[in-house]
């Protein structure tokens, strides 16, 4: 049951990702990206990380996609529709991508450490309490640094996007 659902969501997310890369219109790309994020959040639920699934929907589908759609509305995307890919020879990039993919697959699937059928640790899963303790006790300093980075990005985005008043 869970495996079938995983295969279904994985296939849907890969199809959505291909649509994102191959679509002519940036609006279609944005909608495909949103569909892909929804499938990935469903996969997070299957991997027993419900908090991450909800955060994924809130942050990516809720916030980041709205940002993308707003920027698509602000700029003129019609002239970009005409040509999808970079002009010239794309063969080196394709070869590089194929090499990268096969390298990752070979390295992961040939090493026997990841194909073990049973998980090594006791499998009662990660509770929300354990996650919160880990985030707010062990990783408190990175958490605060992340909040400072978010503040800096907020101020930087406002400064970059405003018109110059001089």
């Amino acid at each position, binding site marked *: 049951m*869970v*495996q079938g659902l*995983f*295969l279904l969501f*994985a296939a849907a*997310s890969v199809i959505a*990702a291909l649509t*994102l*890369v191959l679509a002519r219109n940036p609006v279609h*790309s944005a909608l495909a*990206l949103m569909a892909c994020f929804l499938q990935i959040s469903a*996969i*997070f639920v299957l*991997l*027993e*990380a419900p908090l*991450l699934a909800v*955060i994924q929907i809130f942050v*990516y589908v809720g*916030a*980041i996609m709205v940002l*993308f759609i707003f*920027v698509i509305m602000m*700029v*003129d*995307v019609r*002239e*970009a529709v005409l*040509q*999808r*890919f*970079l002009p010239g020879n*794309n063969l080196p*990039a*394709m070869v590089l*991508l194929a090499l*990268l*993919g096969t390298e*990752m*697959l070979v390295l*992961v*699937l040939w090493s026997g450490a*990841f*194909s073990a059928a049973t*998980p090594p*640790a006791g*499998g009662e*899963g*990660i509770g929300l309490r354990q*996650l919160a303790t*880990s985030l707010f006790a062990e990783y408190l300093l990175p958490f605060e640094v*992340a909040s400072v*980075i*978010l503040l800096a*990005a*907020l101020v*930087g*985005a406002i400064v*970059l996007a405003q*018109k110059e008043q001089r």
Partner: protein
Amino acid sequence: MVPLWWSIVLGVALFVIGAGGVLLRRNILVVLMSLELLLNSVNINFIAFGHHFADSRGQVFAIFVIAITAAEVAVALGILVALVRNKSTLRSDDVTLMKG
């Protein structure tokens, strides 16, 4: 119970597709969206390994990745809006201000 290597193969597939979008597409907006896809495939790996080893640190790192991604997207789209205002183009090979 989902085998670990299924999640890893899914992460690899999404990473390669996203990298293809970053390397091959001409539109800067689509390049940014493909970048989001790359970061998401890494998140799948973090959560799959955290689930496999019953370790909460995978989810903690995924939360940090999501936070940094939100900051990155805000700054990148701000730069994009400023770029379009100065030099009305969305094609990544037209942006040669820094002689790259």
